[in-house]
């Protein structure tokens, strides 16, 4: 039986959690910075790292107290090593190293994307997943389609060529004057909108499993904003920030609904095709965008293969998933040294941990 403390600070959540055997959550504490960053329409790095520094001590303490497990009973301390914001990652990494040194427990640096994968093992599973599994990791910073052949064995099939899916939601949300983060607000607006009003571009019909959301974002902007006149453009100071002006006669709800359908269709069509081609037994969706209800419903409709996704509180960043991923690495006998560095860029592949 393993007791692992997980720490996650890769972006805007300071989180800590104790997980038993990679499956049972003994405690799960998340200090969200969403309110802090909402005013800016996105995560501000300096605000983020300062907030992490303030929150990390109390958050880890709370996770330990909630779990009822003492530091002595821990088997390992796991921390997100990347990908993420360098300043934010360092706060978690340094805290984890300090704890590892103080307690004498081994340190494990975990890939944030692998954490999202293992959030699936934390949900109440009636049956063990059967490999191969198709993984769709979709969040504010990532859009990845991977084939998982076993624990720690990944093959990347595709990913975004430009914006991440969640980023497209954030940017279109900003365009529509909706609060940050864009995903849930667009989803809510879309419920009262007509998705047939605008026909935004869908996926390119090619054989790849790559995604592209930048053209869609631009198409939305073209459709719903007022183009500045040549006169205004000429007079504008070079480099001055240009705020797009929303057309008065468009319904935000209709745009949100039409945009959401276009995003979902692209993701679902590529994922369903990959599932068929690779003969997978299951489809796993994880990451913040996997909380989108339309995406879940359409994915289930598009394929006969079982589709799993984590409960809503585990879709977004959390530390339980980091502890869960660490369980399998711990059981495989893997340990990290105390001079471990953070990796802001760190794609998830089978050899991700090799160097």
């Amino acid at each position, binding site marked *: 039986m393993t007791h692992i403390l997980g720490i996650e600070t890769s972006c805007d959540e300071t989180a800590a959690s104790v997980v038993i055997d990679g499956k049972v959550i003994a405690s799960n504490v998340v200090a969200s910075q969403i309110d802090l960053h909402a005013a800016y329409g996105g995560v501000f*790095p*300096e605000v983020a*790292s300062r907030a992490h520094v303030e929150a990390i001590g109390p958050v880890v303490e709370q996770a330990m107290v909630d779990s009822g497990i003492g530091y002595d009973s821990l088997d390992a301390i796991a921390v997100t090593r990347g990908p993420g914001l360098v300043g934010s990652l360092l706060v978690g990494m340094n805290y984890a190293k300090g704890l590892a040194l103080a307690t004498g427990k081994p340190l494990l640096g975990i890939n944030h994307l692998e954490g999202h994968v293992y959030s699936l093992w934390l949900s109440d599973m009636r049956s063990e997943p059967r490999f191969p599994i198709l993984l769709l990791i979709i969040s*504010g910073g990532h859009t990845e389609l991977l084939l998982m052949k076993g624990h720690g064995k990944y093959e990347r099939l595709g990913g975004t060529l*430009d914006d991440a899916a969640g980023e497209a939601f954030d940017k279109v949300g900003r365009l529509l004057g909706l609060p940050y983060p864009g995903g849930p607000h667009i989803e809510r607006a879309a419920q009262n909108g007509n998705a047939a009003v605008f026909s935004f571009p869908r996926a390119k019909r090619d054989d790849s499993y790559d995604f592209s959301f*930048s053209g869609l974002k631009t198409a939305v902007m073209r459709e719903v904003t007022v183009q500045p006149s040549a006169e205004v453009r000429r007079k504008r100071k070079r480099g001055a920030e240009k705020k797009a002006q929303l057309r008065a006669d468009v319904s935000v709800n209709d745009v949100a609904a039409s945009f959401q359908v276009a995003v979902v269709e692209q993701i679902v069509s590529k994922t369903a095709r990959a599932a068929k081609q690779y003969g997978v037994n299951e489809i796993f969706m994880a990451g913040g965008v996997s909380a989108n209800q339309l995406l879940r419903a359409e994915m289930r409709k598009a394929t006969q293969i079982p589709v799993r996704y984590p409960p809503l509180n585990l879709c977004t960043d959390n530390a339980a998933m980091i502890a869960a991923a660490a369980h399998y690495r711990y059981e495989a006998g893997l340990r990290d040294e105390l001079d471990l560095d953070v990796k*802001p860029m760190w794609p998830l592949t089978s050899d991700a941990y090799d160097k």
Partner: protein
Amino acid sequence: MPIIKEGELDIISHSAEQTQRFGVRLGALLQPGDVICLSGDMGAGKTVFATGIGKGWGAKHALTSPTFNLVHEHTRDADKVRLYHLDCYRLTTAAEADTIGLDDMLDSAGILVFEWPEHIEAALPKKRLWIEIRVIEPTRRNFMFEAHGKRYETLVAEFRRQILGR
């Protein structure tokens, strides 16, 4: 008398594909220490152009939007040079640029490609290539190249030869 100044170039791209090809040509000409600033509205094509730069330079992984992580660090097989692709949209002051390690990147002799550079203009080196991208029509974009410093005048001249043959 020339119509545009030395070190300036004014071109039109007619599609996202062409924008990327412009980027490819520029990317192939980059040298360690080069600083490229891409300024323009959301949807102007900054990331499309940057993706082209990455291809032309030979980046191991395709350049994608750095909006979320703020900095993407790229490598290539040819040498040990790094290419840093930055999005400064969420940086409000030059001091904040420090929190993402801008000084270290500038000292590293790597190549720096900025999106939203105007947000941290005070922290940028004076010598740089500034590219202003304007949306003219749904698919057409106007690229204004402005060289600041001798190196960038040379770079713009080479780039002009590459795309115009003169």
